[in-house]
Structures are given as C-alpha cells and as structure tokens.
C-alpha cells in the first residue's frame, strides 16, 4: 500500500535524527541496578542463551577482598608463588565477619596450606568455582542448566523446575533456578560447610545460602552477581559481582584437570609404609 511521502529534506532530517537517537540509546552507559539494554539471542525455548565457555578475569581466587601484593605461602616459588594484588569482588570491600568467625578466618589464613580444600583437590564449592582462573562450560536446557568446571571436574546441576530442598549436604550445594526476564536467578543451599571462598581463608558454614544472578551484558560477557547469607558466620548478607567473559578461541574446550594425584601425598603420605630399619 503506498505510503504518503514526506517532503525530501524533512524525511532525511527525520532519518538522521532517528539514527542518531538509536546510536545514543545503544551506547548509553548502564547505571548499576538498571536493566541492561542488551538482549541475548534466544534459545529455542525463548530464554536468554547463556550456553558457552566462560571464565572470570579477576584475582578473587587468591583473595575476594581488595588486597595488596604479598608473599605467597610457598616461599620456594618466589615471585611465581606470590599473591597478586586485586581489587576484590566484594561490594563494600570487607567481609562482615562475626567476631568468632573473624578469628577463625585469621587461623585459616595462617594455616592455609594445611586447611585450604583446594590444596587437597576437594570440590571448590559455590561461588568459588565461578571465579577460579579456568574456563567453565554452561550447557543450558529448559529443565536443567549444567555447569562444568575445569578444576577437579566439578559439576553444578541447576534445576529449572521440580524445585526441591537439598536432600543432603554437598560440596557444590543444591541449586534451584528460575528466569527473571533477562536474568537467570539461582538459589543454592545445602552446603556441607567445608568449602572456602578463596585461598585467603575466607570461609562459611553449612548455613550458607547463595543467590546468584546471571545477566548477559554483551555477546561475550555476563554480569555475575551473588548475594551470600550465612548468619552463623557473618553479621549481615553481603554481595559479590564480576563479569564472566566468553572464551573466544576457535575450538575452545574444557580440558581434564584431574588433581587427585597431585594431592595424594599430602592427604595419605603420613600413612605410607616406611622402609624397615
């Protein structure tokens, strides 16, 4: 059907203005807390597509709080084993430990080689697995979103329906997920209390509940936010946030990081048969 024609110059002005406005709209900086204008491509069932291989770029694995560079716990490794400086991922900077828990954290830090579950190749827990410096893969379906991690081949199953309470406690926790518009919201509980948040001894109890939000912010990164609640350890809930970046190499894939063999002497060495006199 023929449209009424605008006068030529007016049409060009309208087009230029509309184009300029749309460019400005796309590049408007996202204020924190506001919905991102980016909308991820959809999966076949109409949800934001979070499939892919992702990785955090942060020094949180060493210490989730802001921290300066420091000597590492294995001096023989020199600079290669030092703790790199980091801005941390904790909103507000410091963790709100209860007094007794702050003392426990200090003890954890002083004895971290002996106590850090990562050293023994134990499953890293949630959220620590999300910001370890290795790729992880998201495999997303309507009923289950699986997350597979390089370290110790840890697996998280996020149940998108048939939500239930954790039948028993676990290292990675029991995760129930749902969609909130563009954001995947995951509630995780049922922790066994044996995981840490980082290599600095920051820890939690079995009462921990984690609420995560995953929001695609560009084709190649997600905004990851998590609220941590543990009234046995902290005086109030606290929050972390960091981007997760897509691994863009062609044929990017998870390789096997089976670390049990690297930890066996540490765990079982004291029970080895000693050579007889």
């Amino acid at each position: 059907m023929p449209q009424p024609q605008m006068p030529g110059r007016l049409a060009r002005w309208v087009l230029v203005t509309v184009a300029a406005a749309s460019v400005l709209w796309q590049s408007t900086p996202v204020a924190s807390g506001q919905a991102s204008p980016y909308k991820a491509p959809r999966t076949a069932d109409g949800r934001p597509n979070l499939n892919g291989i992702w990785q955090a770029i942060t020094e949180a694995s060493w210490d989730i709080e802001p921290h300066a560079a420091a000597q590492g716990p294995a001096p023989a490794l020199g600079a290669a084993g030092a703790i790199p400086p980091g801005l941390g991922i904790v909103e507000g900077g410091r963790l709100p430990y209860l007094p007794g828990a702050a003392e426990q954290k200090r003890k954890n830090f002083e004895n971290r080689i002996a106590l850090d579950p990562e050293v023994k190749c134990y499953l890293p827990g949630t959220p620590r697995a999300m910001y370890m410096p290795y790729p992880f893969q998201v495999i997303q379906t309507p009923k289950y979103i699986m997350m597979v991690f390089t370290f110790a081949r840890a697996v998280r199953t996020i149940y998108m329906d048939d939500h239930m309470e954790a039948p028993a406690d676990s290292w990675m926790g029991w995760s129930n997920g749902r969609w909130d518009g563009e954001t995947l919201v995951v509630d995780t509980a049922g922790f066994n209390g044996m995981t840490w948040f980082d290599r600095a001894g920051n820890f939690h109890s079995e009462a921990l509940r984690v609420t995560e939000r995953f929001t695609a912010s560009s084709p190649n990164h997600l905004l990851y936010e998590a609220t941590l609640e543990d009234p046995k350890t902290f005086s109030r809930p606290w929050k972390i946030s960091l981007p997760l970046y897509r691994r863009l190499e062609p044929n990017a894939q998870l390789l096997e990081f089976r670390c049990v063999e690297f930890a066996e002497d540490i765990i079982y060495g004291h029970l080895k048969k000693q050579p007889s006199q």
Partner: protein
Amino acid sequence: MTMNRTIVWAGLGVLLAAAPLAAHHAFSAEFDVQKPIKLTGSLVKWEMINPHSWFHIDVKQPDGQVVRWMIEGGSPNQLIRLGVTKNTLQVGTEFVIEGYLARDGTNKAVGRNFILTDGRRLFLGGSAPGGDPVLK
C-alpha cells in the same frame, strides 16, 4: 530342551559372577573378618556422603560411659532417588548394628546389618522408616 537348560544354568553361574567383587577386597583390608561386633547405640548424625555413608552413633558402655562410633554404610544416592533425605533418620534413633571392627584400632566398624528397635532392618532391608520406598 534339557540340554539347552543345562547350558543356560551353567551360564548363569558366570552371569552372577559378573557382580563386581573387587570391592570386597578393599573392605577386608579396612575391617577385620575375625572381629565381628554387635553394638547398640543412638544416632548422632548420618553423614550422607560418597563413596560410602557414615553413621555416627553414641554407644552406652556397661560402665555407663558413652562412646562415639563411626559405622560405614552404603552410598546414599539410590536412597535419595527413593525420597530419603537428611531428615528421614531422626537424631536419637536407636540401632543395633552387627558388623566388623576396623583394623586400625579406632571406634569404627562396617555395618553389616542396621536393625531398628522394632526389629525392622534399616531402609530397604524391610520397609524404610517414614514410608515405603518405590521399588523400580
């Protein structure tokens, strides 16, 4: 027909042998077949973990002292599929446990039989406390 049957039953022995028995070797290294024990105690905690679950129980000795024991049981994974949770077994549940003592001299044993005070065997050695499990 008789000949075929004989072959079938002979084959049966091998089929049954397909049941993996290697696991028993590790168990007999952990626990002592020469030291059967029978304990009566109450549940402190059922650690629902893998590869084997562990029942922490308080055993009252004849002298009145209460001693903590750890008793090895099976992986909880199939029970979880049948609806068993960490709330199924109440703290304080009384058991009789027949089993074998650990070789390392500590208060540990493998639980060959877990028997409740009413004589039922725990979970599927009878009917599970708190409801019948669904059998596949």
